């Protein structure tokens, strides 16, 4: 039997903490405030919790964590997005210029 490593234990502990709080409290205002505080964590922990919630099929936790990430990234630039999600820019310089031109009209609205 494999032992659970410390970081995995930490993630599971967070998930359990969330589930227990949401099971015992029914006051939506109190939960909102608690959630706000709970989600003050670094991205890697947040992402690990998302993966755990997805694997364990805990819809409410998945919903809240993804909403938190969505709110965090919605104003960011494409370069910041690549850094956060570790995505490689696979455009050639010409292609990248093309995409920017295509979406210039929409980008102007910022």
């Amino acid at each position, binding site marked *: 039997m494999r032992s659970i490593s410390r*970081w995995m234990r930490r993630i599971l502990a967070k998930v359990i903490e969330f589930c227990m709080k949401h099971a015992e409290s029914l006051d939506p205002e109190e939960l909102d405030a608690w959630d706000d505080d709970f989600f003050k964590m670094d991205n890697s922990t947040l992402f690990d919790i998302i993966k755990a919630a997805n694997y364990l099929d805990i819809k409410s936790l998945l919903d809240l964590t993804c909403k938190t990430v969505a709110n965090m*990234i919605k104003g960011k630039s494409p370069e910041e997005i690549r850094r956060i*999600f570790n995505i490689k820019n696979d455009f050639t310089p010409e292609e990248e210029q093309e995409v920017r031109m295509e979406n210039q009209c929409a980008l102007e609205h910022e």
Partner: protein
Amino acid sequence: MGSLFSKNKSLAILPEDIIKGEILIRLPVKSLVRFRCVCKSWRYLLSCDPCFAKSHLAHSCLDCNNATLIVKYRSNRAYEYKLNLLNSQYLKVSGSVNGLVCVYHNLPNSIPFIGIWNPATSQYKDFFTQFKASHIPLDSGVSVGFGFDSFTDDYKVIFITMSYDSPSPLVADVYSCNAESWGNNSIESSFLLHGILFPWPTIVHGRPYWYNYGVESPEHYFVIYFDLHHEVFKLLPGIKYVMATTQNRVMVNLRDSLAMLFDYTPDYTPRSVDVYIFNERSGSWSKNYSVTSIKVPKNMPLLNCFSNGDLLFRRNLCLNLVTISQESHGINMFGNEVYDYYGPVSKVFCPCSYSYIESLVSVKGMHPMLISEAESDIFVIDWSF
């Protein structure tokens, strides 16, 4: 489960299906358009993938507090998007479905054309109607409907002409966005229209509805809709409501149901609005509620109703809009007193508003719209505050 987690914090990554299926789907269209530059697969997902556009729209629709409207009016009020086209005072809005807006342009002495616009992605396409301007009697003899045929996944535009000699049938030509062309045959309604068709349709569930007015007897009063899939006109019963002279009727989409608002402005008693909803299952209308003691002056006609029940009134020809909140009856005035309008505004005036929800949806032939400094009357405005 261990393999799912990154031991090295600097490589914390989320699987693609979670990023796309759970996170990107929650973002506003403005952000998604900007993120097309991130990488090739995101560019495809966020511009060409119809499945993602649909899922994103479905997710947006879950937010029931949407208070965004497309309006045709002139004002200096802050807006989300505006349609920049030359001669836009001749543009009328025909409706909005799934984030696409249909407009109709009828500049005198030129062939009318129809435009399909996605404000959030700034994409646009237009095409001519098949009629020369001379064949169209007058503006009130024409109406343009817009809708979505979910069976064939096709957005369609319905161009209706009606003869002034009442009673007469309605004649429609249908444009299919998938086929990028008008149908070969005109479609005539099986019934005769008494009175005049209200020129601007109400869109519910992707289907356009019209009502007729100016009828002499209540038996001839109906609600007409166009079945987009079978391409045929159909009738719904009208409301057997006695129209007193102090009454104005407005048909709207209220929380995805067809609704009729009766605006009663008698001389000596307070103004009130009765709200009737059409029940599709029973095929009948019933009175849902009334808003009473409305302290909005009579010279401001009722225009629309938000999903939360707030009523929208129009002030002046140039549409300074006024809302009244259902709960508190507090009156909020919007718009700028300083405006100038020109020309025969009453002829091209289109006092309509349509609810709108942002989406990535596009139809064939759409291209990015260039930014221009042209004045516009067509705005997408967010009324939530």
